[in-house]
C-alpha cells in the first residue's frame, strides 16, 4: 500500500491534505465519467496506524491516483512510501 505518514500529533497536517485531495476529487466529478461520492478523503479516526504514525492512503487505482498526484507538492510526492502490511 502506498501512503504518506503523519505523526499522530500532526492531525492538522493530515486533515489539510485530506481536504485538499477531497476537494480536488469533487472538482473532477463527471470528467470522463469519474464518480466520487464521499464526504471526505480520509479520517484520522479511521486511519491505519503504521509504526505509530497515521497512514494517509494514496489510492493507486486510476483515475484517483492521477488526481491525487495533481494536488500533491513535489515534496509530498517524494514522501510517499510503500507500506508492507502483511
Amino acid at each position, binding site marked *: 500500500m502506498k501512503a504518506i505518514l503523519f505523526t499522530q500529533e500532526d492531525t492538522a497536517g493530515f486533515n489539510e491534505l485530506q481536504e485538499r485531495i477531497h476537494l480536488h476529487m469533487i472538482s473532477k466529478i463527471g470528467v470522463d465519467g469519474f464518480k466520487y461520492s464521499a464526504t471526505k478523503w480520509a479520517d484520522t479516526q479511521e486511519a491505519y496506524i503504521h509504526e505509530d504514525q497515521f497512514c494517509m492512503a494514496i489510492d493507486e487505482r486510476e483515475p484517483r491516483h492521477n488526481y491525487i498526484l495533481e494536488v500533491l507538492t513535489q515534496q509530498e510526492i517524494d514522501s510517499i512510501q510503500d507500506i508492507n502490511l*502483511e
Partner: protein
Amino acid sequence: MRVKGDGIFSINTSASGGFGNAGISLPETVADAGGGGDSPPITEELQLYINPDADVYSDTGTTLAVDGDSIRQVNDQSGNSNTLEQATASSQYLYATDALGTGNSAFHILAYADHMDFSNTLTIQGATKSLTFYCVYDKTNTATISYLFGTTDGNFNRILEYGNSRIYFQDTDGDSHFATITNAADLAIRAFTLDTSTDTITTYVNGALVNSSYKSKTWGDFNFDSFWGAGFIGYVGNVLLYSDLHDATQVAEVSDWLNTKYSIY
C-alpha cells in the same frame, strides 16, 4: 417471518451491464438475486442479508455500481434496512463483477483501512438470542486479525477471524470464545453458529462441520457497527446473519442454497 412477495417489487432498469448488481429491490421482503436466484431457504430471524449482486451503489442509493466503482452504499436485502455505508473515500471497497465463482460480483477489499459501517447499530441480545452467520469470501492475504463484524472504534463486539484458522465471537464485555476453521484463504461458504444457551460455537465450511467448542460464559449484547475490515484483503460475496441458532441440517440447507450461486463444492 419475512417471505418473498409480501411487499412492493421493483426492478431498477438502470442496472449495470453484464453480471452483477441487478438492482432488485424488495422493500419489507427478502430479495431475489441470492443463491440460485431465490430467497434464502430460511428467513426466520434473518437480521442481515448482503448480496453483492443486488443494490450496491456508487453513491447514496441512486446510482448502481459498475465494475471498478468505489462503493458508497449497500442495501440490506433482509427487509430490515441495515444499510452499509462508507463516506470516507480512502476506506471504500471496490465493486468487482465476475469475481467469485462463475460470474458473481464481490466487494473487493484492497487496503487495511477499507470497511463499511452500518447506518444503525445492528444489535443482537446474546442473553436471549443465538447467532448464525453465513459468509462467502476469498481472502488473499495472511493478516493475523480481521474482523467480519466489528465496531467503528475497534473495540469489543466482534466476529473476528484470527490467523486464518479461528473464528472468535466477542460480545459487550470483551470476553471471547473461538472455534477453528479451515484455511480462510480458500474460497468457501462458511457458517459460524453461537448457541448462547449452551455456550457452544460451531463452525462449518461448505456445509460440513469443522469444529465445535464450548466455554462457560454469560453472553451480553452484540452491537455491530462495522462490516468487514481491519486486516482483510480479498473478495466478499453473500453474507447473512440470523439471530437464531441453525442446526447442522439447516446449515447444510442454506449452504447448499448459496452453492447454487457460487458452485464451490
